[in-house]
């Protein structure tokens, strides 16, 4: 048996106490390391609960920032610029979807008659059989901007805008969103006004003739009574029996710079001198068809084929449609970030669902209630790629306002992308049901993880504020803004941090504290290690000296000394690590936080590192003790 081990056994109490000292130090430092590790995890987890975003301000022309080589490019993809604090861009995708068995929401149905634009282009699609009762044509002067060949504005010219207004008596409502039957007053007449003429440039309607009309169905015009009695709808219909059909909103749109909402039909301008009007392009769906006899017979004939096979099925599909936003982070959406929208039941998506593209979704409270959906239910989404645009608020309540309403084009057979999936509802969110704004969405919007749709990047549209946010590292918005200012884009973004700044200091304290714990733990370990080695080798020194005097080789003494110390060290570290783990468990069990719970991997790593340090120091000490010069030692002793 190793002579030094024998010595340890002979002086068992001393050895045990020495080992215990080291074990205690290892335990304390393990607790320190575990606490440091836990605090770091905790800090990161708390940090991860907050999302700092930069969203473009609506009053400045910000999209220029997103262009590189004439292509809209997210910040993170712009290689030449290094934006401080920039973590990622959430380039969200947008699709429409046919949701089988789930009806879309109508603003009318939710007692919001303020703007028929909210219903475009889903449930507002309708086909009615009518008889023309009056037609009036108008020629209104308008100012049109004139540009030179360099696209510089050089002035305006006066043109004549042709339009017409027709009224019809309703023969039959062939296809209309079912809820309108109960919500809207009974319709006897329908009015129709447009600047879109026939292919020949003529008013397409004649008094006394019967037509099929297709377009967006709007309820009667209303005004809002602020003093309506309780239980009585504050919306009052001006002429309840007169409803309206529209194909376009050209007249109200041209000044705003927004998309015109021409997402259902396509048309082209026809100019006749100073007079301008529009006509449908050849590939556009028709918005009217003259018929004689019964409309049922018309639909059966060849001329009715497009109505029978395309328009009517399209209406039915759109009554069960919804907008779908594909996102990589719900909290980067402005409304969710500011708390105006929040998950009311269930939960939001987790990191795994975003990464793996799990088929899960969030629906609004209103949508869930209407379609009797609850958390855990499954809905079937059949995706369509539709255009996205804004309509200016035609709100009768806030008459004359210029607030935008986000609308998407209808689901059409030719836009179907061929992806259909069952999505599980994991959460139900609350948000303003129908609201105006560049960053706002309507209550029939479904959110899904972006990766759940194949080739999702094809459906991104970073030029729409709703579909783009810059995600910043928490607490770096000042640096980011300073950098943007240096590029000449100061004030382009607004920043939202979910009140992260209020706890930023606390997180800094936690970081510093975690480091201090590590330093305290390590100091205790190092001091105890020094004490352990000092006492252990002081005890072994005379024996080693004696062995060398007896002619035993230095290397052998050194090896035996190291082996004996290593065994003691190994036992002490193992006991210490176990003691540390047990104590830490006892403590953290009372604290009730999973984040600072003991991580065996971290503890093992710490113990292994401590063992390595001790073994290294033991090897150095063994080398020194066994390598002492015998003659000098004797002389010293004789002195």
């Amino acid at each position, binding site marked *: 048996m190793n002579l030094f081990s024998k010595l340890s056994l002979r002086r068992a109490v*001393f050895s045990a*106490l020495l080992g*215990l000292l080291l074990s205690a130090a290892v335990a*304390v430092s393990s607790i320190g390391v575990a*606490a440091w590790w*836990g*605090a770091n995890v*905790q800090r990161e987890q*708390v940090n991860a*609960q*907050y999302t700092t975003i930069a*969203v473009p*301000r*609506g*009053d400045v022309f910000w999209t220029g920032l997103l262009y590189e080589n004439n292509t809209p490019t997210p910040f993170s993809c712009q290689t030449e610029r290094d934006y401080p604090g920039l973590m990622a861009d959430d380039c969200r995708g947008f699709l429409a979807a046919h949701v089988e068995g789930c009806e879309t929401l109508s603003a009318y149905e*939710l007692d919001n008659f303020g703007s028929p634009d909210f219903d475009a282009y889903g449930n507002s699609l309708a086909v009615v059989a009518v008889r023309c009762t009056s037609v009036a044509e108008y020629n209104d002067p308008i100012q049109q901007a004139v540009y030179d060949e360099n696209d510089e504005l050089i002035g305006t010219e006066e043109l004549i805008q042709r339009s017409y207004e027709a009224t019809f008596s309703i023969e039959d409502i062939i296809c209309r969103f079912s809820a309108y039957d109960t919500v809207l007053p009974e319709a006897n007449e329908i009015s129709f006004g447009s600047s879109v003429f026939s292919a020949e440039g003529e008013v397409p309607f004649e008094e006394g003739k019967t037509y099929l009309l297709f377009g967006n169905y709007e309820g009667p015009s209303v005004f*809002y*009574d*602020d*003093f309506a009695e309780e239980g009585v709808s504050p919306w009052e219909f001006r002429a309840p029996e007169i409803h309206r059909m529209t194909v376009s909103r050209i007249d109200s749109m041209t000044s705003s710079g927004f998309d015109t909402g021409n997402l259902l039909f396509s048309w082209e301008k026809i100019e006749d001198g100073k007079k301008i009007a529009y006509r449908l392009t050849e590939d556009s769906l028709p918005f009217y068809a003259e018929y004689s006899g019964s409309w049922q017979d018309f639909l059966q004939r060849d001329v009715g084929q497009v109505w029978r096979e395309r328009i009517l099925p399209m209406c039915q599909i759109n009554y069960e449609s919804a907008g779908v936003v594909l996102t990589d982070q719900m909290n980067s959406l402005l409304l969710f970030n500011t*708390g*105006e929208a929040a998950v*009311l*039941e269930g939960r939001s998506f987790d990191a795994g669902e975003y990464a793996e593209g799990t088929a899960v979704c969030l629906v609004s*409270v209103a949508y869930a*209630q209407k379609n009797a959906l609850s958390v855990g239910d499954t809905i079937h989404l059949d995706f369509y790629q539709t255009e996205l645009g804004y309509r200016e*608020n035609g709100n009768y309540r*806030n008459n*004359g306002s210029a*607030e935008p309403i986000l609308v998407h084009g209808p689901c059409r057979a030719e836009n179907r992308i061929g992806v259909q999936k069952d999505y599980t509802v994991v959460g139900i969110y*609350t948000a*303003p*049901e*129908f609201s105006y*704004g*560049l*960053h706002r969405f309507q*209550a029939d919007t479904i959110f899904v993880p972006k990766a759940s749709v194949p080739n999702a990047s094809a459906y991104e549209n970073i030029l729409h*504020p709703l579909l783009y946010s810059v995600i910043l590292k928490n607490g770096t918005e000042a640096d980011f803004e300073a950098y943007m200012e240096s590029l000449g884009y100061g004030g382009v973004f*607004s920043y939202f941090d979910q*009140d992260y*700044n*209020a706890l930023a200091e*606390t997180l*800094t304290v*936690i970081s510093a504290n975690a480091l*201090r*714990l590590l330093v*305290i733990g390590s*100091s205790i370990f190092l*001091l105890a290690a*020094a*004490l352990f080695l*000092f006492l252990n080798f002081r005890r072994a020194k005379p024996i080693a000296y004696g062995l060398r005097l007896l002619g035993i080789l230095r290397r052998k003494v050194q090896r035996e000394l190291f082996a004996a110390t290593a065994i003691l060290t190994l036992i002490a570290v193992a006991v210490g690590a176990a003691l540390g783990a047990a104590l830490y468990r006892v403590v953290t069990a*009372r*604290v*009730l*936080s999973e*984040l*600072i719970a003991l991580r065996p991997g971290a503890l093992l790593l710490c113990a292994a590192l401590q063992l390595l340090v001790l073994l290294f120091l033991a090897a150095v000490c063994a080398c020194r003790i066994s390598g002492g010069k015998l003659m000098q030692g004797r002389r010293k002793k004789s002195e």
Partner: protein
Amino acid sequence: MKANTTSGKALRQVALRTLWRRKGASILLAAVAALGVFASVALQNVIARQETGMRDMVRNTSIHCVVTDAQGRNSEDLRMYSAFVDMLTGRRHERDCYLDEAVKNVRAKATVQLEQPQGMTLRRILSFDSDSTLSATEGANVRLFDGWTEDVFRTNAAVCMIPEGTETQCGEDGQQYVTAITQDGTSLQLQVIGTVSGRTDNAIRCPFYAQQDSGITELYSVESCSFDILDNERLDACKAAVYEVFVEPSLANTASSRTYGVLIQDKAYLSSLDEFRSSLSLLQLLLPILTVLFGGIGFLASYLTIRGRMREFAVMRCLGMKRRKIFAQVFGGQVLLAFLGAAVGGFAGFLSERAISAAAIGKAGLILAVFLAGAALASRNVTRVNVMKLMKVEE
């Protein structure tokens, strides 16, 4: 008596010389004490810093609350009686309702259509962020004339902001005015104090309580309302007060024009606070462990450093020295080393923090006391040596 004094002085000198002779062990013992004190001071400082950080977080975090309908379907176009806003702002204290003692930063807007100016609306707001259409992200640009601040919207001043380009009348005082006539014929003469340009609607914005007395106000139909919790330290009490007037939104609730929900967005705050609290509890629990551990280490270190002097103690006993005196000599040395170490540890703790709190001194004192108790126990055990037995072994 003199002989006693002389012998005491001699003993002290012997004790000091012994400490010096065994300087390795002495330094180690002092170092252990220093480390214990430093660790306790550092840990106490860590705890104190964490407590301060948590207090700051609790004080500075705004917990937003959004008023919805009872089911949580909608938070805009609420059509809620302004009496609810009156309760939140403290204008109504009926039936022991003191909601203003639970909430702050109330944001609300109410819009009425105007007969005049035609095509415009009058929007009563409590602050700019009451109206999302005033936000820069939506493209609005708000400009207040010199001398006016947003705070005026929390008063009942007869002032307003108008969309740029709105016609105004010049008053006798040289100021611009707008006369707003509502559908029921109520007329408000409002002084123009600012403009709104950019992408915005045709609304004249005035203080929520413009031209209202401080008593009971007119009833408006409020479109949207939100507020913050007044005091996060009393979060539960504040929430309870809020839920006395509002309900917790749930799909299971019955929709009613008299019942409104409030979504209190405290999830992230509470979750962060829980984590900070758990972290603090961990630190607080580490301190007793450290104390016990240093008691043990004190005993062990003392025992190991003085057990080698057993022969000395035996000789002292043979020379007639009392056990108590030997204990006093040995323990005195330990105390000296411990205090020396404690001073060094305390100083290191002070250097690391540039301050030392009374609590830290208390904790350091406790650690030192436990350490010395361990040392005393070790000294007692070692100095109670059986001389005969020891001599026998040495023979």
